[in-house]
C-alpha cells in the first residue's frame, strides 16, 4: 500500500515557498526527493485558503505532538522530536451584522475565496519573476499587474505617479516637480557612478533625501521615501537606492506598474515549484505527520520518522512547523484580512492596489494590498484588503485604527486580525544544533520573495555545490521520448526563455494588463 521510498537524497518537510524551491531545485538536477507536509494543503504559511478553511485554520491550535510513533533509538541513532510551535496568535474576528453578506452567505461562497496568509507582490524584475522565467515554470500560474500604487500622506490617500505617463497625467505633482522626479529617476538607475549618491551609501536614506533635497519637494520626497524606495528611517541610502532601482526597472516590463500578482492568490507560487519537483520525480505526501529525526553521534541528521516509519536521507529541509530546536525568540508580524463591499462596480475589476502607509506615532509602516474578484480571490461584488506590519502590541491593536480609517464600517463585511511568527530575521538557514538540517524562513514582511529565493539557493548550494540551481526545464516539444527503455531523453537546456516585454513601456498607454490582452485574442 505505502510504497514510499525509504531512502532518498533529500527529504523536505513543509510546503512553503523557500522549501518548495529547494525541493524543485534538487529534483531538477536528478536528486531523489520526498516531500511531506503535516497539513492537507500546499503552502504552509504561504498558503491561500477558502473562507471556511481560513477561519478554521486561524482558530485551530496546532496538534500537540502525542508522541505516537516516536522512537528512542534505532541503529545507534538518537531520536529528536519535532515540535510545531503555534503559528498564529491573538486571533480576533469581527463580523458586520448589518452587511447583506452574512456569515452564512460567506460560507456558502467559501470556495470563491483564495485568502492569502502571506500576501505579496512580485516586482516585474524581482527574483521571483526572474526565477519563474529562467526555470520555465511561469506556465503553472497566471498573473496580473497591480493597477495602482497609493500612499497615505497626512490624512489623504494619494496616487504615486509611477510611469512617465503617470507623472505627466497626475494632479498630485506639478510641472517643476515632474522634471525633478524624472531627473532623480534617471540618476538612480546609475547611482553607483553618481558621486552625489556614493558618499551617502552607508548613511540613512531619509536624511539624504531631506538634506540633499535634489530639488525634490516635500511631496516628491514622500513618494520616493515611502513608495518607490519603501524606506524606513533606518534604511541606508545604498539599500534604499537598490530598492528604488528595482522599482524603477520593474516599471514598464509588462505595463505601467512595477508589480504582478498571481491569480488565485499567492498560495499558487509554492505549488508551481512543487509541481516542477513532481514532474522531475519528487514524491508528494500531504497530510502526513512527522514525529521527528534520527541523528548520529556527530549530531548529523540521518533519517526522518513519520507515522512510525523511518526514511533515510542525506539532507533534510524543513520549515518552522518541524523545527526540533523550538526556537522561541521569534519576531511576529501583525496581519488583518478585511473582506469588503466593492465600492464601485465600474472600477477596473480588481487587478489590485498597493497602499504604503508610512510609519506614524507608535505605529510601524503598514503595507495594504487590496484586490477584487478579477484576481479570483473573492466573489463578485466583494473585495479583500490585506494589512501587514511588524507586530508592536497585537494585530488588532496595531492595525484596527488604520483598518477603520481606510474602510468605514458600512464597507466592512468581515475582519480577521492575527499575529504570525516571523523568522526572516534569523541570520542563517542551518540550525546550530544539527548538521544536514536546513530550516527555511517564514514569509516575513517583505513585499517580494527575494530573501526566500536567496535562502533557497544558499541551502541548495550547501547541499550540492557543483550543481546548477534550477536550470531551465525543457518544453514538452523539446523532449525526445525514447521508447526503447521508456526513459525520456532531455536535451541540454541551451536556449534561455526570452522575455517578451512590452517595449520600454514607460510611455506605453496600453491597458497595462497583459492577461486581459491575451483574453481578447486575435482580431
Amino acid at each position, binding site marked *: 500500500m505505502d510504497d514510499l521510498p525509504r531512502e532518498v537524497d533529500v527529504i523536505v518537510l513543509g510546503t512553503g515557498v523557500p522549501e518548495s524551491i529547494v525541493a524543485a531545485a534538487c529534483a531538477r538536477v536528478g536528486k531523489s526527493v520526498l516531500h511531506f507536509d503535516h497539513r492537507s494543503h500546499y503552502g504552509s504559511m504561504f498558503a491561500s485558503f477558502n473562507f471556511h478553511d481560513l477561519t478554521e485554520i486561524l482558530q485551530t491550535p496546532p496538534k500537540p505532538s502525542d508522541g505516537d510513533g516516536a522512537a528512542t533509538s534505532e541503529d545507534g541513532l538518537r531520536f529528536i522530536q519535532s515540535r510545531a510551535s503555534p503559528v498564529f496568535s491573538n486571533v480576533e474576528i469581527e463580523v458586520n451584522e448589518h452587511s447583506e453578506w452574512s456569515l452564512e452567505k460567506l460560507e456558502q461562497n467559501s470556495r470563491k475565496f483564495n485568502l492569502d496568509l502571506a500576501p505579496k507582490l512580485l516586482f516585474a524584475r524581482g527574483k521571483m519573476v526572474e526565477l519563474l*522565467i529562467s526555470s520555465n515554470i511561469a506556465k503553472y500560474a497566471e498573473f496580473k499587474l497591480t493597477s495602482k500604487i497609493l500612499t497615505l500622506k497626512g490624512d489623504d490617500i494619494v496616487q504615486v505617479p509611477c510611469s512617465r505617463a503617470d507623472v505627466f497625467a497626475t494632479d498630485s505633482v506639478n510641472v517643476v516637480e515632474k522634471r525633478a522626479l524624472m531627473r532623480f529617476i534617471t540618476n538612480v538607475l546609475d547611482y553607483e557612478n553618481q558621486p552625489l549618491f556614493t558618499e551617502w551609501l552607508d548613511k540613512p536614506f531619509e536624511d539624504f533625501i531631506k538634506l540633499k533635497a535634489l530639488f525634490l519637494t516635500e511631496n516628491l520626497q514622500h513618494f520616493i521615501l515611502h513608495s518607490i524606495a519603501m524606506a524606513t528611517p533606518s534604511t541606508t541610502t545604498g539599500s534604499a537606492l537598490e530598492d528604488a532601482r528595482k522599482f524603477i526597472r520593474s516599471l514598464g516590463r509588462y505595463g505601467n506598474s512595477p508589480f504582478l500578482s498571481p491569480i488565485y492568490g499567492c498560495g499558487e507560487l509554492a505549488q508551481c515549484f512543487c509541481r516542477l519537483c513532481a514532474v*522531475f520525480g519528487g514524491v*508528494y505526501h500531504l497530510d502526513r505527520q512527522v514525529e521527528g529525526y534520527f541523528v548520529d553521534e556527530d549530531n548529523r541528521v540521518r533519517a526522518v520518522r513519520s507515522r512510525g516509519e523511518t526514511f533515510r536521507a542525506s539532507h533534510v529541509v524543513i520549515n518552522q512547523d518541524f523545527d526540533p530546536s523550538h526556537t522561541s525568540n521569534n519576531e511576529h508580524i501583525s496581519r488583518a484580512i478585511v473582506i469588503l463591499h466593492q465600492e464601485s462596480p465600474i472600477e477596473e475589476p480588481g487587478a489590485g492596489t498597493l497602499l504604503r502607509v508610512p510609519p506614524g506615532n507608535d505605529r510601524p509602516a503598514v503595507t495594504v494590498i487590496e484586490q477584487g474578484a478579477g484576481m479570483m480571490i473573492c466573489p463578485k461584488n466583494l473585495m479583500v484588503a490585506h494589512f501587514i506590519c511588524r507586530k508592536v502590541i497585537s494585530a488588532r491593536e496595531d492595525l484596527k485604527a488604520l483598518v477603520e480609517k481606510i474602510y468605514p464600517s458600512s464597507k466592512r463585511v468581515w475582519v480577521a486580525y492575527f499575529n504570525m511568527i516571523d523568522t526572516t530575521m534569523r541570520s542563517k538557514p542551518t540550525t546550530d544544533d544539527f548538521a544536514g538540517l536546513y530550516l527555511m524562513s517564514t514569509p516575513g514582511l517583505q513585499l517580494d520573495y527575494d530573501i526566500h529565493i536567496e535562502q533557497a539557493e544558499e541551502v541548495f548550494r550547501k547541499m550540492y555545490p557543483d550543481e546548477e540551481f534550477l536550470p531551465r526545464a525543457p518544453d514538452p516539444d523539446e523532449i525526445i521520448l525514447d521508447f526503447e527503455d521508456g526513459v525520456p531523453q532531455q536535451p541540454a537546456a541551451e536556449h534561455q526563455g526570452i522575455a517578451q516585454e512590452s517595449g520600454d513601456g514607460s510611455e506605453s498607454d496600453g491597458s497595462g494588463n497583459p492577461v486581459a490582452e*491575451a*483574453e481578447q485574442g*486575435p482580431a
Partner: protein
Amino acid sequence: MEDYKFLFKVVLIGNAGVGKTCLVRRFTQGMFPPGQGATIGVDFLIKTVEVDGDKVKLQIWDTAGQERFRSITQSYYRSAHALVLVYDISSQPTFDCLPDWLREIEQYASPKVLRAVVGNKIDRDDREIPTHIGEEFARRNDMYFIETSAKEADNVEKLFTEIAHRLTQEARASRYSTSGPAAPDLSQSPSKSDNPCCKMLQ
C-alpha cells in the same frame, strides 16, 4: 510558428495506475509505453487536431504522480478547459474513488469546465465494472462517458477528438455571442502564443 485557432488545456485525473499516462502517450505519440513508472520531466504533451477545418491544439496535462497520495496541487486544475476522470474497468477501487475526485474538481476547477469520465483497460478480461455502471455514473454527474483501451488504441482518438469538438463548439458560441464578458475558460483559447495564460512571463 505553428498556426492554430484554439488552444485547450485538458487535465487528466484518477487513481495511480489507471492508465492516464498511457492514454496521453497513445493519443499524442501513437505509442503504448511499456512498463510502469513515472515519466521524468514530462509536464504535458501537445497534439493538434482539426475540427471542422480549424486547427485546434490540445495541451494534455498529466498528474506527475501527485495523485498517489492525494496530493495534487490545486493550481493543476486552474484554467483547465476539460477534466478527464479515468478509472480502470478491472479495478473496483479505482471506480469507487470517482466521487472523491469529483469533490476535488468541484473545489478547485472552474464550474464551466467540460468533464469526461473514462473507463480504461477494456482490453483486459477481468472486468469488474460493467459498462452500464460507468455510464450511469457519468449520466448522474452530467459527464461525457467513454470506455477505452490505451493498449489496443481503442476509442483513444475518439475520446480526445470528442473533447476537442465540444470545446471548440463552446468556444465558438461564446466568441460570437454578444452578451457580457467572455467566460473565464475562454481566456486562453485564441492566441498566437503557445501559452497565452502566461504570455507575459515568457
